[in-house]
């Protein structure tokens, strides 16, 4: 009761502080409290002092009023500070500790920036989080709630890192926090929490996962469904979910059904593939790769082809969509399914009525499938199809020919089709050649920069002259093997017109060095002196290799060039590189620069 009165008085003085003590004279609401105060004053003198101070304020002049209000309030606040309540609602129960076994020993200067990075917004946070992860200073009890809460961060790379690195490092310790933060109706962060909890607890929490899958928010649902894929007994739930009205939920359910791979699951996937869900079912089917399912799809494809050939316009569109789905589902399984797939693909690609521009996508997919099979008859068919010069077939034909025919046969068959290099066939062929070269060359030397060089024995030596005639500098670079006059003249001619940074320029230089053309260093130097300093921006791998290929005698000129570079960091790198060339043992230089490169590489690693 007495405290209530004090509290009321506090409200009134606070009001006057805001309104101004000038309003206090004869204030009605303050006045009303006076009798109560006086009455309480009979038992406790401090109320009398408050009553007196309040009265003084009520009767004070405008000028005196602020001092009186301050005096009253000072006294009142002092009294209130002795009256603070510490009672608690209800009957408190001892808290149950989760027993997380983590220390709290990380010092402020390490822990604080980490927690700041997790809980605030702004730049440089991921960097800080990485640093804390690397030096191990993130493993602290106090960081745990912030780490788990960062699964919600809007900068996606942070929750990714937290999910992949930080929380797994906390292990079981993170479980109670994740559990307390988990909200099945929440967002993406809660999906991540569910995945992490499952990773720790495994099957023990299948009930919660099933609940999330059937009644959670979409994000939680998707995460839960992806977990269910390893539990065969969850098949009924997944079958039900594969009929959800949301497309992404159905897609997730198909993926999980594919990893369960039971008969009903495959039935459902087939059903999805031939319905409007074809597109989202293709991925899971491909991943599952069940031969029975694929064979069934091939039979379905054959029917679709039949109805395409016999049907009306509307049925045709539907059937061609179905065919595309079947072909996509077979992608990657061509070799395995060759026995069933070859007759299907053959029929598809040899039925004239089907080979119309509208079905070009399917034709390409079928051709790709044909090459995948690695069957002699399939390759033969691909080459034959290409002969007609029709559509995209020439590309596949070339690839099959490269695989089955000798280099000179390939040249004889295709060189003639190039003409001036401008026709559609020629363009397709050039693209096919590039494709084959990349495919053939790339995995041989990991740190290759720029265009690869072809394997000499795999190609006819006449190609390079053809490319020179067709003016294809990129291909010339790939096919050049030694410093023939023709090649040297062509490339140096091209370089004379070029500027640093232009198309194919560094490739052409690298090629000159590769084929050991003796004027290569001079050509490179010329190009550098032609104003390259202004449009050279960073030291890429190929440039580094070019510089490292220079003989020592060029060091002074290279250094002089380096002085002109606009960008300081590039300049520093350039100078360091020059110094390294200077330091390189002389013997390596005899091998025309290549040795310096090798020596440099061994030094860097």
């Amino acid at each position, binding site marked *: 009761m007495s405290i209530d009165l004090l509290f009321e008085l506090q409200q009134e003085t606070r009001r006057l502080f805001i*309104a*101004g003590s000038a309003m206090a004279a004869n204030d009605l609401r303050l006045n009303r409290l006076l009798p109560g105060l006086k009455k309480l004053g009979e038992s406790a003198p401090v109320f009398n002092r408050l009553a007196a101070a309040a009265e003084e304020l009520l009767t004070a002049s405008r000028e005196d009023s602020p001092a009186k209000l301050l005096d009253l309030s000072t006294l009142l606040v002092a009294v209130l*500070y002795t009256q603070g*309540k510490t009672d608690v609602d209800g009957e*408190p129960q001892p808290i149950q500790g989760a027993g997380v076994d983590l220390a*709290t020993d990380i010092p402020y200067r390490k822990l604080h920036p980490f927690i700041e990075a997790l809980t605030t917004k702004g730049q440089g946070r991921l960097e800080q989080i990485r640093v804390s992860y690397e030096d191990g200073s993130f493993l602290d009890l106090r960081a745990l709630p912030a780490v788990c809460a960062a699964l919600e961060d809007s900068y996606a790379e942070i929750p990714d890192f937290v999910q992949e690195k930080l929380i797994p490092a906390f292990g079981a310790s993170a479980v109670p926090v994740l559990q307390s933060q988990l909200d099945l109706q929440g967002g993406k962060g809660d999906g991540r929490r569910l995945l992490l909890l499952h990773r720790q607890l495994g099957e023990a929490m299948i009930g919660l996962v099933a609940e999330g899958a059937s009644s959670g928010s979409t994000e939680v649902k998707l995460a839960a469904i992806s977990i269910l894929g390893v539990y065969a007994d969850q098949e009924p739930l997944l079958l039900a979910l594969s009929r959800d009205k949301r497309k992404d939920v159905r897609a997730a359910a198909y993926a999980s059904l594919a990893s369960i791979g039971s008969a009903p699951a495959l039935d459902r996937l087939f059903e999805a593939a031939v319905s409007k869900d074809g597109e989202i079912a293709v991925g899971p089917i491909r991943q599952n790769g069940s031969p029975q399912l694929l064979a069934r799809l091939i039979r379905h494809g054959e029917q679709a082809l039949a109805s395409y050939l016999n049907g009306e316009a509307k049925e045709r569109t539907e059937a061609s969509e179905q065919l595309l789905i079947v072909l996509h589902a077979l992608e990657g399984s061509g070799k395995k399914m060759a026995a069933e797939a070859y007759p299907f693909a053959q029929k598809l690609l040899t039925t004239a009525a089907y080979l119309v521009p509208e079905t070009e996508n399917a034709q390409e997919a079928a051709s790709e499938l044909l090459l995948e099979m690695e069957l002699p008859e399939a390759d033969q068919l691909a080459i034959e199809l290409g002969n007609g010069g029709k559509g995209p077939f020439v590309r596949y034909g070339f690839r099959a020919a490269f695989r089955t025919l000798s280099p000179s046969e390939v040249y004889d068959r295709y060189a003639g089709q190039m003409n001036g290099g401008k026709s559609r066939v020629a363009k397709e062929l050039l693209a096919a050649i590039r494709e084959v070269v990349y495919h053939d060359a790339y995995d041989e030397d990991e740190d290759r920069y720029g265009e690869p060089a072809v394997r000499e024995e795999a190609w006819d030596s006449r190609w390079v002259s053809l490319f020179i005639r067709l003016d294809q500098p990129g291909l010339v670079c790939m096919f050049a093997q030694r410093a023939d006059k023709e090649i040297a003249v062509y490339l140096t001619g091209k370089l004379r017109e070029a500027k640093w940074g232009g198309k194919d320029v560094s490739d052409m230089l690298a090629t000159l060095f590769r084929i050991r053309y003796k004027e290569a260093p001079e050509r490179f130097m010329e190009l550098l002196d032609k104003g390259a300093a202004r449009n050279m921006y960073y030291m890429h791998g190929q440039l580094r290799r070019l510089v490292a290929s220079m003989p020592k005698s060029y060091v002074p000129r290279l250094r002089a060039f380096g002085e002109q570079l606009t960008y300081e960091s590039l300049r520093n790198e350039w100078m360091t590189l020059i110094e390294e060339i200077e330091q390189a043992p002389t013997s390596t230089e005899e091998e025309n620069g290549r040795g310096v490169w090798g020596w440099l590489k061994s030094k860097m690693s």
Partner: protein
Amino acid sequence: MPTITEAYVDSLAPNAGAIKNGRDLIKKNSFPVLNESPDATLLFGECNGSGKEPYRCSVDFVNEASPVFRCSCPSRQFPCKHALGLLYARAMGSPFTPAEVPQDIADKRDKAEKREEKKKDAAESEGNAPAAKRKVNKSALVKKFASQLEGLRLLEKLVLQLVQSGLGSVDKKTVQMIEEQAKQLGNHFIPGVQAKLRAFVHTMQTEGDREAIYSQAMEQLLLMHSLVKKGVSYLEKRMENPELPMETGTSLEEQLGHAWQLAELREYGRAQSGAELLQLSFLSYADAARGEYVDAGWWVDLSDGTVRSTRHLRPFRAARALKEEDTVRAVVRTEELFVYPGEVNARVRWETATQREAGEADYSKVKAAAAASYADVVKQVKNIIKNPLADKTPVMLVAFRSIDKTADGLCLRDAQGKLLPVTDLKTNGSATSALIALLDEKDLRDQAALVMFSHRLDDNRLSVQLMSIVTDSRFIRLLY
């Protein structure tokens, strides 16, 4: 040379950035030359920088307790990242080639030695004549008092004016006027008072919940009013009789803005010899009104269980060049502990200290010092905070029987079953109560906690924030 560990190097670094930069130098392999003197007192090396010439840095352990860092780089940070990098290289086991001490460092060592000798000689000759008591220029002192009084009266006038017209009428123009006045207070030797007015300006400039701002502003006005009253009566007395000693019973001098010097504290008998302190909690925050970072530590004196505090202030402008304080896990031993005047959690300071590992015996001492009865502690706290000038958030060590869950949070329970509600103070940054449920059962029964009290005037509730928990075997830092 002491064994150099990464933690040791971390503790030498002036701030977290320097730690990172120093470590990065190792990652980038920036030390082409690493040397060590044959007598193992000096580490030196070369570190690649952005310039042509590498920086030559060294760490000299001639005096093990205070290593000397030298570097040819122009950084104002001390020690710089190069010297730290050199030590990290050592801690991480990079090979150091033995080499003779370079001439320039040998010269510097000689010079330092000579300086030391001179100092010693001077100290000896002074030791013969007793140290003269510091002389005070009385007329100057009286002049200073007059100026301080003038400043306080200026503030009084301003406060009265504000109260008369009311907080509701404070607009941008008024705030600007107050800021002007605060600037003027700078000429009156009362920086503490000036800071309080600045804090008021800061409050009034805050955007957000008007009601909360008014409540805070009102408390600040009351504080200034009380400070003016107390300050005026104290200064008037001293002006009448300049021989009177300075006020050391309360923190009044500090609140007015006096920066206590160690010599003064010694003079007033506030130097305690031989003390052992254990840091119980640490926090660093920016005080926008004063324009400085505050590194605050709370410590327990292991001899009697008193809770002390340390405060290192780093003005924003000089923050980069000053050392950021950090959590201290070891027990700090000092020959001379200076205790500032103050009512509760008195501020302490020391010049030199050694450290030793904290152990279970220390934790038991801390637990034994914890207050057992909440009725007594609460009474004590209320008695402290009712004083208008007192620290409104005293920090206490309390024992608990258990930590309980209530309808809307947590509370502590003492042996008599008395309860103490727990709330997290926004100003402390982190919600420590969220960590409690993660602890082990045995850490939640019959242990001691360091808590910060606070009283909310708006709903008249007194509650505590948990800062640390001390058990017999473990020390759990909930804050930092």
